[in-house]
């Protein structure tokens, strides 16, 4: 095969693949602006006859989308901020601080990575029920406040910090918390960004646990609300597409803005062998 043909073939396949990957998302945006009923006509329209914001208006005015958006933002932000603090501290300690049982505890955590989260869900529901947390924001936030993956990610990264930095500060009489705040944290900034987007995206997109733990509409996150709406409004494709746009857009924008950090984290996180 001549290089010219090969080049055309490779780039052609890439264009085709990229089209398949993003066409459904573009189509979603287009249908979300269609007037009601247009999506259920033949032939299937590709663009709205006249673009309208009616679907968005209906979602926010009548379907409580504003509330769900607020819930999703609140829950995802709380989880991201607090779990970031917990995972950073723990990951740093496992990497750099000597204490009895360090290896043993870390081994247990790594071993627990093979257990799928769903195994814990049934007793977790009962536990939270006895704690009075079912159907509160806490039911989704609290169990997500630390992750083994996050601790592992930070530990990998923090292992690269030279010990001399901490030793010098210790000789100068700085306490461990001071050292962490003034010396370690600035060095961990890249992994903080990475872990923050990972956590935020995971919290935003999470489905099964919020579906179980949030029993009342007033606490629904966007995915739960969308799933429930889509069961009620099976025929209202335009409305559902607008709901999908509202759900996907925030995370997609976040990813596009910070994708370098996200992709790096993906690689550190999976090369654990």
């Amino acid at each position, binding site marked *: 095969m001549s290089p010219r043909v090969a080049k055309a073939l490779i780039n052609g396949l890439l264009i085709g693949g990229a089209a398949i990957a993003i066409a459904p998302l573009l189509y*979603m945006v287009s249908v979300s602006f269609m007037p009601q009923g247009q*999506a259920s006509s033949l032939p299937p329209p590709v663009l709205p006859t006249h673009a309208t914001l009616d679907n968005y208006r209906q979602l926010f005015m009548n379907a409580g989308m504003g509330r769900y958006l607020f819930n999703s933002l609140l829950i995802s932000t709380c989880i991201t901020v607090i779990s970031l603090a917990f995972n950073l501290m723990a990951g740093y300690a496992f990497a750099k*601080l000597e*204490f009895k049982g360090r290896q043993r505890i870390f081994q247990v955590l790594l071993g627990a990575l093979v*257990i799928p989260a769903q*195994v814990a869900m049934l007793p977790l529901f009962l536990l939270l029920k006895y704690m009075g947390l079912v159907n509160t924001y806490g039911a989704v936030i609290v*169990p997500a406040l630390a992750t083994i993956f996050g601790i592992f990610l930070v530990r990998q990264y923090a292992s690269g910090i030279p010990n001399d930095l901490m030793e010098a500060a210790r000789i100068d009489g700085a306490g461990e918390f001071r050292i962490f705040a003034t010396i370690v944290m600035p060095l961990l900034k890249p992994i903080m960004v990475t872990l923050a987007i990972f956590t935020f995206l995971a919290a935003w997109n999470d*489905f099964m646990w919020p579906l179980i733990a949030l029993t009342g509409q007033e606490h629904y996150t966007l995915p739960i609300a969308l799933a429930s709406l889509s069961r009620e409004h099976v025929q209202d494709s335009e409305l559902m*597409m607008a709901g999908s746009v509202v759900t996907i857009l925030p995370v997609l924008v976040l990813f596009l803005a910070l994708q370098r950090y996200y992709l790096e984290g993906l690689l550190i996180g999976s090369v654990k062998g």
Partner: protein
Amino acid sequence: MTTSRAAWWFITPALIVLGVFFLLPVVAALVLSLTDYDLYALADIRNLRFVALENYWALLQRPLFWSALGHTVYFVVVGVPLSMAASLGAAMLLNSPLARFKAFFRTALFAPVVTTVVAVAVIWRYLFNTKYGLVNYAFDSLGIPTVDWLGDPHWAMPTIILFAVWKNFGYNMIIFMAGLQAIPGDLYEAARIDGASAMAQFRHITLPMLKPTMVMVSILTVSGYFQLFAEPYVMTEGGPLQSTTSVLYLMYEEGFKWWNLGSASAVAFILFVIMFVVTAAILRLSKQGAPA
């Protein structure tokens, strides 16, 4: 304060969260699966009885459990290879020196990964709508017989597999790209000088050199695909004729619709054991094969 004392302060918050809200429930799940915890026990804990392995026995005799397991295995066995092939193909295209606009293509191909499953499942449900969907319209225009994608028990699972491949292939694509970049260029150089074809280079250089990456990716993907839940929940509600009811879907219904928490825990544990065995088998097989 000594360093080790401080260290405990650093790890305690995370350990409390993981201990109380993950490890403790996992142990409790094992206990729960040996009881008849149901709606009556939920109302009054005194109704709880220890039933040993009865839940497990009962499950093994239920056709619905076996069909749910069958559907999940179908999803894994067809979905994982397809997904990995798509990932590897895309990674090799992006890695080619002839490819242009790499950053753009990488972002576009990766975009479905960060989207919300529920939201994109809603899109696919519309695209694959029997009457108004674009897919059937395209089929019809090309003279291909249309398919009742999500309404036909034979087609619902393939449609969900297609959806899952589209949604997930970008993740492994990134990992494969890193793996491909780690292969020394000299190897290909030498092969070209020896006159090896592109296919021979792929078989004798790319695949063997990628083996460690392959093993890791297949373990991650198999574990992920065994946890099939949101897709059938949104696209088919486990139907038609329960043809897309997965093991986790069964666990969800058993536990949170019928409140048979004991039996649902047994479902969760069986799934866990199966995942563990399959993962171990992949690791073992990968060690038995020719040394990489």
